[in-house]
């Protein structure tokens, strides 16, 4: 639970923000914590900073991630984790918009993670696999 003051123009509003997710993202307050008694937020990690490393799996890795260009369903997966692939090689087939769209490797690399299997529905931007 956090109490915030928002000023818009000359008017200020006091608001209370309650985080309903189980593991709240560390708020990393730079200065002394507000003088509010800490709410019953389960704090598993001793150091709040450490919690930042447990990212949600949806967050795209910095590089090497092959993402879905649009929403659709996976029809065929041509590769498995550990496979070496060449740039332009067909990795999988995404059925979307009446088409069977080939998803090709953007570069040479090794499939370090494969997150989808045939039949999966994926949204635009979904990480399909990661090349290293």
């Amino acid at each position: 639970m956090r109490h915030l003051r928002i000023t818009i123009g000359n008017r200020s509003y006091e608001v209370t923000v309650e985080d309903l997710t189980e593991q709240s993202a560390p708020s990393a307050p730079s200065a002394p914590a507000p003088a509010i008694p800490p709410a019953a937020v389960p704090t598993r990690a001793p150091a709040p900073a450490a919690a930042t490393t447990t990212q949600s799996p949806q967050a795209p890795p910095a590089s090497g991630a092959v993402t879905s260009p649009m929403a659709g369903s996976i029809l065929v997966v041509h590769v498995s984790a550990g496979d070496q692939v060449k740039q332009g090689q067909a990795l999988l087939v995404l059925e979307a918009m009446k088409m069977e769209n080939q998803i090709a490797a953007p570069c040479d690399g090794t499939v370090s993670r494969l997150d989808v299997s045939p039949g999966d529905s994926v949204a635009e931007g979904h990480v399909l696999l990661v090349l290293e």
Partner: protein
Amino acid sequence: MAIRRELLEELEKRRSELTPGGGEARHAKRRGKGMLSARERLDVFFDADTFQEWGMHVTHSCHDFGMENKPMPCDGVVTGVGLVSGRPVAAFSQDATVGGGALGQRHAQKICAIMEYALEAGMPFVAVNDSGGARIQEAVESLSGYGQVFYRNVLLSGCVPQVGVIAGNCAGGAAYSPALMDFLIMTRRNANMFICGPQVIKAATGVDCTMDEIGSANANAAISGNVHFVAEDDQHAMQIVDRLLSFLPANNVQDPPHRPTEELCLDADESMNDIVPANIKDPMDMYEVIQRIVDPGEFLEVHRDFARNIIVGFGRVDGVVVGVIANQPSVKAGTLDIDASDKGARFIRFCNAFNVPLLTLVDVPGFLPGVAQEQGGIIRHGAKLLFAYSAATVPKITVITRKAYGGSYLAMCSRDLKADMVFAWPTAEIAVMGAEGAVNVLYRKELATAEDKEAARSELIEEYRERFASPYMAASHGMLTDVIPPSQTRPAVSLALRNTLSKNETRPPKKHGLIPL
């Protein structure tokens, strides 16, 4: 009797002091980065010895901040007129070795003079940008200079082609003159274009970003779509301008430089039949189709890196210049999204303004579904495509290769938007929606009560597809000029172009239509 020698000597002396711009040391530094000087950029662009410089001796009029003692050769910009492949072109090239190429009042005045001349004489205008921005010492006078250039960009717009080259810095307000032009070429390594740089963004929003992310050639060409061509270096940039101009008329009352061949090449191209995949769901590479329709080597793609689900560019077919707009099914299934609609509409409007016939190659499954698309305004963006095609009075020829569904079919220059000729391949699927979706709606009750739902469904889908997802339903309603085998595409397009070149369509006069911007 002869002119006094010292007069000639003085002229020579003045010229030799002005042409080196900001001096050898600054030029050497830039040369080290692989950059050409302002004058060299014009030298590689214009035919040898044809450039007539305007206002070499112009000086600034600033008396503040010690500027009165600071010479600014040519006031930091070289302007003039010359021949490019034998055709007159007006141009300026900013000299970053002189006060950083910053724009002052006289600098702007020189640019405005050459722009006004380009308009009066009806010749293309080329702007080589390399400038630190406004000359701060000249305060609001330099700011006003930008305004005057912007205004003239708009006066020229649609009358003469305007091509900008971003060959150095182009930041803040300075970026809006290029933004008002028709085509922008940016060099890959030494150029930046942005409104607010990383430091300003950080200060205002707290977000860290790099120049590469916001202002590089790649960011401008592939992400924001501000830039149409990326050049490897300065010389390459000027070559692209030359190539681009080779497809464009000098002004809007002239025809583009058609070079009609005496004989039409009307032979069937059997290889065209081979590039159509047997499976209707396999994407086709539309580049292969374009390459087989245009004359060998005569295709210049515009906006290649942006919204790759649609392809636009200039080509020639048996010598006749065309603007090609084509869905690219191998990217995002060839769907129309916000960026593709903007890209297509802008190109169509340019072609229409400069009398370039339109060749539209259709393989479109629909508008791209998605929350981001709806919230981003796909309705008003997609409407630009409908607007641009409907407003275009140049010859409009459409070839429907495969998918042509619903609103996206209409938007790709259908007969209803007054395409002059519409050809369809036997593989064309012209329908209001996909068979799967249509069956779900049309046979909801039957499917709900069917014993084997899946079997009934696939049977109905197949039935629908055969009857409706073909060119013959549309053809029977008179919506097509003809159904042709792919092998006949080039001859059909070539003949259609020859037959429509004399088209002259007039509309009721008005100030301008209201394209949903």
